[in-house]
Structures are given as structure tokens and as C-alpha cells.
């Protein structure tokens, strides 16, 4: 109704003659600012403290004031937008409320609880959900291993093609006893062992992360990495099998290999998940699909990096100090049983609870909807 007042009509301001401009002191925006400024400054100090030293350092009373002050500032912002033309003021409020928003609605979970949630539910659950990708990654690696095994068994020259880089002096030219010694060799200095384990870990983990990241390039490099890994494995196996060292080789490889190979397959599966989200987004937009699968895959990769660290410890320390074949196999079996249990069963109850109804904490899922916004092009992610 007010909007239809003709522009020429005298503005009916109480206490001022028609046509006269109210003095600056009576400007509504000036009075408005004077009344509320103290609360804004208090909020500003609170967020500055929270930013600098963490939310935890705020006292109980301050914590209780925070949402109150935030809502007050938010309402100030919306009033300022409609009555004030002071650019400095609206910019300030926009900035203040934006910063307060992330303090008020930011993650409040304790690190210990986050870690517990990660290990007891998120990681095994995400792995279970990626089972088909894991299967695909495992098949690619196994197929490469079998092919390389067959080829190398038929013609030892292939060994140099498949496992040349990783040979470290273990080639078809070595004698059988040299190869056997390599499997039971004990390092003397513990320092060398630690360095060896550490470099193995960082090398493997980097390759694993890369296998995930290259999923973004439609997953082809991911598949290549898996395939290449399988070739090395097959070539190695063929050499030792040909010399009658099959049992010794597996006893040497499996204690850490179970964990390491599983981790490699998991990284590959994460990369494939990413690739699928990118190439076949399904009914959703590519961005939405990438976002969901990317986050899930990243959790799997972090799990795999931790597994590689464990594998590095086994490889660098255990394997170099224990030579008994039965014990080596016992350890390999134990790790296999553990990972099957962990990824197969941990957190299943939570899975079911989530499926029944997502009962999560208070989580803002504000959506930018087109009609709410004054400038349509500014919508960040219009709910699709």
C-alpha cells in the first residue's frame, strides 16, 4: 500500500513540515545504528576470541550469549538492508553475520568423538557401500597378476618387463639360494629398518592417493596403476614359483601383503567411484554426484593410508625379524581375518539405524532458492 504513494505526495513525518528534510540526527538509520551498535561490537569480540583461541575457551555465559547476539545481528542486517543506505554499515553487518554464522553453525564435535565415529562407523560403512568398485578394482589387479604370471612362467624374459623396476637384485639371473636368502634375510641395524619401513609407507601412500585422485581423469590412470601393480606381483610370483620357492615367497609377502594389497585395492576403488560419479552421474547433476562420491571416497583413502602405515610397520619390522614360515602365515591369516571382520561387520548396527531414519544432530541444510533471492544469478547451488 505504501509503495503506491505518489512520489509528489508530501511525506507525512510527524513533527516536520511538509517538504522539509528531517535533520541527520533523526535519520532512522542513524538512530537504529546507535541503538544496536553495542550488541554488534560484543558479537564481534566474541567471534574474534572464538577464531583466535577456539570456541572452547569462551565462558558458559559467553557461549549462551552467542546465538542470541547472532540472531540480533542477523535481524539488524535484514533491517539495515531495508532502511539504511549507508554502504559501510551494510557491508560491516554482512561481514559480521557471515563470520558469526560459521561460528554458530560450524562443527562442534570433539576430535575424539569424530575419530571414534570415523573408525567405528564411517570407514567400514563407506567401504561396504563401495563393494562393487572394490570388486572391480580387485579383478583388474588379479587379472593383471594372472596374465603376468602365465607369461613370465612361459618366458622368464618377461620378468624384466613386468618387475624390472622393483627387482632390487632379485632377477632370473640370481641363483635359487640367493633368492631364498633374500626372503629370510635379517637386517642388523634397527635404524635401517625404520627408514626402510618409512620410505615404503610414504611411497605406497602417495601412489594410493594418486590412484584416488586420478579417478578425476575418468579413472583410466587408476586402472593403469592397479594393472601395473598386478603385473609386478604376477612377475614376482612366477619367478619364485619356477624355483620351487612358492611357499617361502607367500610367507614372506602375505604378512604385510594382505593389508597392503587391500589398501591398494581400496584406493583404486575410491578412484573408480570418483570416475563413475564424473562420467555417469545418473539422475543427479554431475556436481552433486561428484560431491557425494568424492567425500565418501576420501574417507576410504584416509583409511587406506592408515592401513599402509600398518603394512609398512609389518614389512619393515616384523618381516625382517621373524623368519619362521608358520608364524609368518599365522600373522598373514590373522590380518586377513581382522580386515574381513572390520570391513564386513563393524558399524553394521549404525548402518541399519541410518537406513531406518537419518537421526542426525541439528544440521543446517539451508538452501538457496531462486525466489528468495534479490539477485537471481547469485544463487550458489539452487536446490535441484
Amino acid at each position: 500500500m505504501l509503495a503506491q504513494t505518489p512520489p509528489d505526495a508530501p511525506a507525512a513525518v510527524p513533527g516536520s513540515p511538509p517538504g522539509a528534510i528531517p535533520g541527520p540526527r533523526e535519520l532512522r538509520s542513524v538512530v537504529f545504528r546507535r541503538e544496536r551498535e553495542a550488541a554488534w561490537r560484543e558479537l564481534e569480540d566474541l567471534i574474534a576470541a572464538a577464531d583466535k583461541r577456539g570456541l572452547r575457551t569462551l565462558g558458559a555465559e559467553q557461549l549462551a550469549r552467542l546465538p542470541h547476539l547472532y540472531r540480533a545481528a542477523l535481524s539488524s542486517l535484514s533491517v539495515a538492508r531495508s532502511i539504511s543506505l549507508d554502504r559501510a554499515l551494510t557491508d560491516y553487518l554482512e561481514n559480521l553475520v557471515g563470520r558469526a554464522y560459521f561460528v554458530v553453525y560450524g562443527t562442534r564435535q570433539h576430535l575424539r568423538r569424530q575419530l571414534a565415529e570415523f573408525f567405528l562407523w564411517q570407514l567400514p560403512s563407506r567401504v561396504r557401500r563401495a563393494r562393487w568398485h572394490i570388486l572391480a578394482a580387485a579383478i583388474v589387479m588379479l587379472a593383471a597378476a594372472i596374465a603376468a604370471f602365465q607369461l613370465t612362467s612361459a618366458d622368464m624374459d618377461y620378468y624384466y618387463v613386468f618387475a624390472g623396476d622393483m627387482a632390487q637384485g632379485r632377477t632370473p639371473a640370481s641363483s635359487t639360494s640367493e633368492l631364498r636368502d633374500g626372503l629370510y634375510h635379517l637386517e642388523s641395524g634397527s635404524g635401517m629398518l625404520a627408514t626402510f619401513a618409512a620410505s615404503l609407507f610414504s611411497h605406497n601412500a602417495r601412489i594410493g592417493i594418486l590412484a584416488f585422485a586420478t579417478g578425476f581423469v575418468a579413472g583410466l590412470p587408476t586402472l593403469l596403476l592397479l594393472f601395473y601393480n598386478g603385473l609386478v606381483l604376477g612377475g614376482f610370483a612366477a619367478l619364485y614359483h619356477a624355483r620351487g620357492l612358492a611357499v617361502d615367497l607367500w610367507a614372506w609377502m602375505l604378512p604385510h601383503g594382505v593389508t597392503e594389497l587391500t589398501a591398494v585395492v581400496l584406493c583404486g576403488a575410491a578412484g573408480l567411484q570418483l570416475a563413475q560419479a564424473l562420467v555417469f552421474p545418473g539422475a543427479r547433476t554431475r556436481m552433486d554426484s561428484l560431491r557425494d562420491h568424492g567425500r565418501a571416497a576420501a574417507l576410504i583413502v584416509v583409511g587406506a593410508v592408515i592401513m599402509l602405515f600398518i603394512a609398512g610397520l609389518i614389512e619393515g619390522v616384523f618381516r625382517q625379524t621373524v623368519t619362521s614360515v608358520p608364524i609368518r602365515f599365522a600373522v598373514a591369516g590373522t590380518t586377513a581375518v581382522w580386515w574381513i571382520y572390520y570391513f564386513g561387520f563393524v558399524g553394521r548396527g549404525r548402518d541399519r539405524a541410518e537406513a531406518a531414519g537419518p537421526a542426525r544432530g541439528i544440521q543446517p541444510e539451508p538452501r538457496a532458492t531462486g525466489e528468495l533471492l534479490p539477485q537471481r544469478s547469485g544463487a550458489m547451488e539452487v536446490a535441484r
Partner: protein
Amino acid sequence: MRNVASNMAAVAAQRGNEDAKLIREIVTPEGIPLRFSLARAGDRAAAFLLDMVLQIIVLVVISWGLSSAAGGEASWLTAVIVVLAFLLVNFYFAVFEVRWQGATPGKRRIGIRVIDARGGQLETSAVLARNLIRELEVWMPLRFLLAGGLVWPEAPGWARLCAGAWTFVFLFMPVFNKDRLRIGDMIAGTRVVMQPRIVLVPDLADQAAEAPYYARAGAPVAAGHAFSDAQLGIYGIYELQVLEGVLRTRPGDPAQLEVLRTVSEKVRAKIRYEGKVVDDERFLREFYAAQRAHLEQKLLFGQRREDKFSK
């Protein structure tokens, strides 16, 4: 001089347009849209470089500290440093962004932060996803470019060219899309926005707050300038806020006086102001206050006059 002033206005308008393209909105649960401006590529690069320098410093200091503590004897030293370097390179960003609500030391210094694209909580998984991808975006091409000889000795020219193109495509990805997304941001569903600390400056229309400037000018405050409704009906909100910007620029700087004089002459000619003007700054301030009062008054009645061209 007038040409310069109008050119400046044109540049400012264009600049504003450019800025508007970078504005994104999030609607809070309370139903109020908040505006955020996406971070510029230069700011992000600067923050990244700062973080890199910090990582190197941390690594050097810790290595040096450990080796001097161990007396160069401990054999586990290399192992610790290798693992540390790996963790630092791959999890430095992730740990800070989780603990500091989307900021790292470099980002905080520059005044930018990572947010969830939909305005929800910044999940740990999102932070991990956007940072693990750096292996593909930065480290791999960098390693190849800097130490290509180790990865692939005697690489042919085309391989180097490919590596260069790869680096270029991934590193400059944020420049090529409208949301300024790095691949990591696409995968994680995150955005990087500017969030510097803006301080509240005095209101130009509040007489009590602006007193110091008059004192500096040494002009008598007694006789004010008066403007008629017709004179105040010429300009709109856009011009008002440009004037605000001019008045807030370097107050008290002698060089600014020249700008103020030019603007004041331009305004007087436009609104046909007949009265005598002694102090240009004072005239502009009073015009600003009157103009704002006028426009805000109209605003209350639902008439929003955007600029001098609107009806």
C-alpha cells in the same frame, strides 16, 4: 578533470559488475540470505604460497631440532623425517581446515576461508576430499616438472609438453569456471570465499561522529547548506554510495581535496546549486546527509531509486 571523474565512475561501475559476478548467497536457517564473495585467484595463490613456506619452515626446524637433539647418532631419525614430510605435505591443509573452520594460517592471513557450497557444516570428509586431490593437481605435475629426470630420464619433448599442459589445466582450473572451483572444490562441494574482518567506521550522516573532520577543516559550522526536494530528487542510491566512497577515501589527505573539489563542482552543476560554497568537503558531507535522508525517507514509502537514470 571532469572527464577523469566520470571515467573513474565508469571504472567503478564496471568493477562493481565484476564483483557482483562473484557474489554467492546462502540462506540461513532463519531464512535470511547472506552474501559471500568468492575469493580471487590471486588471493588463493598467495595463501597457498604462504602455507607452503610455512610447511617448509616447520619441516626444516623440526628436522634440525631432532637431529641436534639426537646428536646425529639416532638411526630412526630419517624414518621420522620421512613420515613427517609425508604427513605434512598431505595433511597440513586438511588438519588446519578441520580445526580452524575452513582456514589455514595462509588463508587466515589473506582473509579467505573454505565453506560448504550449500552453507551447511564443513564436513571433515569434504576437507579431506578437497585436499587429497592436491596430489593430482599440484604435487605430481610439480614433481615431474622439477625432477622429471628422476621419474623418467631423458623424457622426450612431447612428454614434458604434456606435463606442462597438465599442470596448466589443473592449476588454472579456478580461472576457467564461474564458481572459481579447484578440482578439489568440485569433488568436495566446497567454495572458497573472501572473509576479511571489516571494521565499523563512523556514519557520515551522524553529526556527532563526523565532528573531527570539521575541526580539521577549521571552517565555521554555523551556516549549513540547504537543498530543495527537487535538488535531492536527481541522484539515486548508486550515486549516493559512490559519494560515500569518495568521502571515506583517505579523509584529511591533501591530495584528496582536489578530488573533493572536482566532485563538488560536478554535483553543484548537476543539481543547480546556487548558494555559496566555502569548504567543498563540508558541502559534500551535508549534501550526502541530506541526500541520504531524502532517499531513506522514500525507501520507507517503498520507493527505491537505484540511480540517476531510474524514473
